[in-house]
């Protein structure tokens, strides 16, 4: 509290004398414009709800902390210095690839920064076989796609990030690799925790680094219970996170350590193969920006077992105002993360325009298969 009160970025939200409970929740990152860097900083991005990008800055000290946090999570999942690990995650301008790479180097592992660019994956697969790779850190979709490549490394560890690992996906990945996958729960804004090996689906939170709360349905904020995840990070001076709403629906319990279960995304959005999450609000915003008369609209995302996504949009509108190609182009550029997922070669798309059956309000339906958020 003392540090927050001395930081002028919080002077309005953390007045002197207030208690923790007086601090309002926020979905916005602090405004960084004009902030003098306390030391050199690196910047990453995440997509905001309006489709514009949000910048997340790390000072050198912040970066050391967030790398150490990730390294502790990886170590808890069994990654050791002797491992040869491929990182199949998005790298700059996105956060996870660089962060995981530096965390693995901190552990003393040998790291192959493979990325998520589909044209590179065959070469990465060959490299892993040549090196005798022992572990991969990736998203569930890319793990499935990578499993189809020939030749394939014999792995001892598989660490998943970026997407929910539902029981069917967990089984499919186990069948493909004969290795039980373990997850890290993280976002571009913060690393939350690692999966408890003895309780799949439950994540252990380090209370010395992250303070978690839940915003319950009744509007109250509590340290335990079911609700939207609210995080406060105990490190990070360049982009402080205080009572930040992550948009995830979770259940938090507290024993020796806080334990958290991911239950889904707020707003029942959809996710894409590289770990990109699209909220209902983002999709509504995109539909607003189309400025078209729209009736029923279905957006379906089929996650194929080959790791590729097939997005189908069925749009009830007047086709004299638009075309399938325009809608497809617009969706593929909905925000930079979606644009990147398309550019990396993981998403195929089909758009169908249908005439109005009736005049009514716009009705958006989202469908995600085979696992529903």
């Amino acid at each position, binding site marked *: 509290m003392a540090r927050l009160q001395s930081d002028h970025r919080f002077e309005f939200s953390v007045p002197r004398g207030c208690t923790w409970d007086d601090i309002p929740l926020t979905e916005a990152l602090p405004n960084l414009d004009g902030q003098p860097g306390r030391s050199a*900083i*690196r910047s990453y991005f995440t997509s905001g709800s309006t489709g514009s*990008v949000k*910048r997340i800055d790390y000072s050198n000290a912040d970066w050391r902390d967030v790398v150490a946090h990730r390294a502790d999570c990886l170590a808890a999942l069994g990654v050791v210095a002797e491992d*040869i690990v491929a990182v199949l995650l998005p*790298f*700059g301008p996105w956060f996870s690839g660089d962060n995981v790479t530096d965390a693995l*180097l901190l552990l003393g592992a040998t790291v*192959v920064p493979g990325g998520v660019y589909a044209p590179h994956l065959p070469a*990465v697969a060959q490299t892993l076989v040549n090196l005798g790779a022992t572990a991969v850190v990736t998203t569930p979709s890319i793990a499935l796609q990578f499993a189809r490549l020939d030749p394939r490394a014999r792995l001892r560890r598989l660490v998943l990030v970026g997407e929910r690992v539902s029981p069917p996906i967990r089984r499919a990945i186990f069948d493909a690799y004969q290795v039980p996958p373990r997850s890290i729960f993280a976002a571009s804004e913060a690393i939350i925790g690692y999966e408890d090996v003895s309780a799949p689906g439950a994540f252990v939170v380090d209370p010395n680094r992250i303070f978690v709360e839940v915003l319950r349905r009744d509007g109250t904020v509590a340290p335990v219970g079911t609700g939207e995840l609210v995080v406060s990070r105990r490190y990070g001076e360049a982009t402080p996170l205080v009572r930040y709403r992550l948009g995830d629906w979770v259940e938090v319990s507290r024993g020796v350590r806080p334990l958290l279960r991911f239950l889904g995304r707020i707003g029942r959005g959809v996710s894409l193969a590289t770990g990109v999450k699209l909220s209902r609000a983002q999709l509504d915003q995109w539909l607003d920006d189309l400025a078209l008369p729209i009736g029923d609209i279905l957006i379906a995302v089929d996650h194929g077992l080959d790791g590729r996504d097939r997005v189908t949009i069925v749009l009830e509108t007047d086709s004299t105002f638009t075309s399938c190609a325009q809608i497809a182009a617009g969706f593929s550029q909905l925000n930079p993360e979606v644009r990147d997922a398309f550019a990396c070669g993981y998403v195929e798309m089909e758009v169908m325009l249908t005439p109005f059956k009736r005049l009514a309000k716009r009705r958006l339906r989202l469908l995600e298969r085979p696992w529903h958020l």
Partner: protein
Amino acid sequence: MASVIEADRVLSVHELVEAAASRAEYAAWRFDSVRTFGDEAWCTLPTTENGALRPGIRSTCAANVGDIVYFSSGTTGAQKSMFFSTRDVERVSALCARFASFEGIGPRDRVMVLLPMTLWGVGRFTSRGHLAAGAQVCPVDLHGGVAMWQQLASAIVPTVISSTPSVLETWAREYRGPTVRVLETTGEVLDRKTRETIETAFGGGVRDAYGLSECVVGVECSAEAGFHYWPDTVGVEVIDTCSDHPVEAGAIGEIVVTSFLQERMPVVRYRTGDLGWLTDDRCRCGSSLPRLLLSGRCSETYRLPRGVSVMPHQLAQSLVVFGCADVTLRLGPDMHVAPFVGPRQATIEIVIDEHGEKSAALAALFSSHPELAELVHENQLAVQIETRSS
């Protein structure tokens, strides 16, 4: 910058030789009499080529000695890996920090690093170098094309962009935004016309740098009269391509480099395949650092967008099991000079034995040359494989 270099002290000749002597590829080399870089004993050492380098055994006693592995296609066609220890990465990044300081980049700058962030080390080294120079750094990979770069640039408002000439030339046609003070380029031959196109569109000065996946070498100054290099970080020699002996001072020959920054996979007397010459003459910029000037390639090389250079015999070697008979680059109508940019302006035509399967050959080619797979994916290159009766 002195503190950065001191903290990441370069390897002495003795330390480098000691590291190299334990490696298989240097086992037959007679390092015993070498005292200094370039002495008589040094000049009698053999040279190395791409594909010959091997990682050594990792020290198990040192803490926090993670390795990072990057990609190299190799002249043999087979895939090779370049190993860098964490310390090596720090040293190479410290050299990149010298580059940045030499270009006048410092804490007031925001640097958009528009280079590959995976498989090849250039993006990581450049990003870390600028961080060490005190700048704010936004690493951005090449995926997504101009629209993506433009959107991110709007959020970053960079004062420096670091990329390849062909990427910046492509973007220059559509760049919208404030003046970018410094445009750093690397990876390709930068011709006068491309330099002018980039400087006109972005408003700042272009500073080119020279290096390979195996060894970062030097950087240009405002005089644009060759690449300055720091002899404590890289040893540069020019040899006669026939005799392998050093050429007369100032004469043209093949550039051979030795890195005093990389211990995990030592790079000693490495043949770059580039032709050029050296000069110690004081530069118009006032620097007394020696300079390297390039004049061409030793053998036929296809220079493609995004800093991709491949030699036809590399491609043929990677397809040798398919009975590869011929590799040809067919240029688009406007492709008389490098760099080659734009959609599908070049086609690589490959002829294999009639019994070879085209799809398998293509998969093998892309597995050993992911940079070509990337260019095809981005519609900047076409690859055609034909079969021919043996």
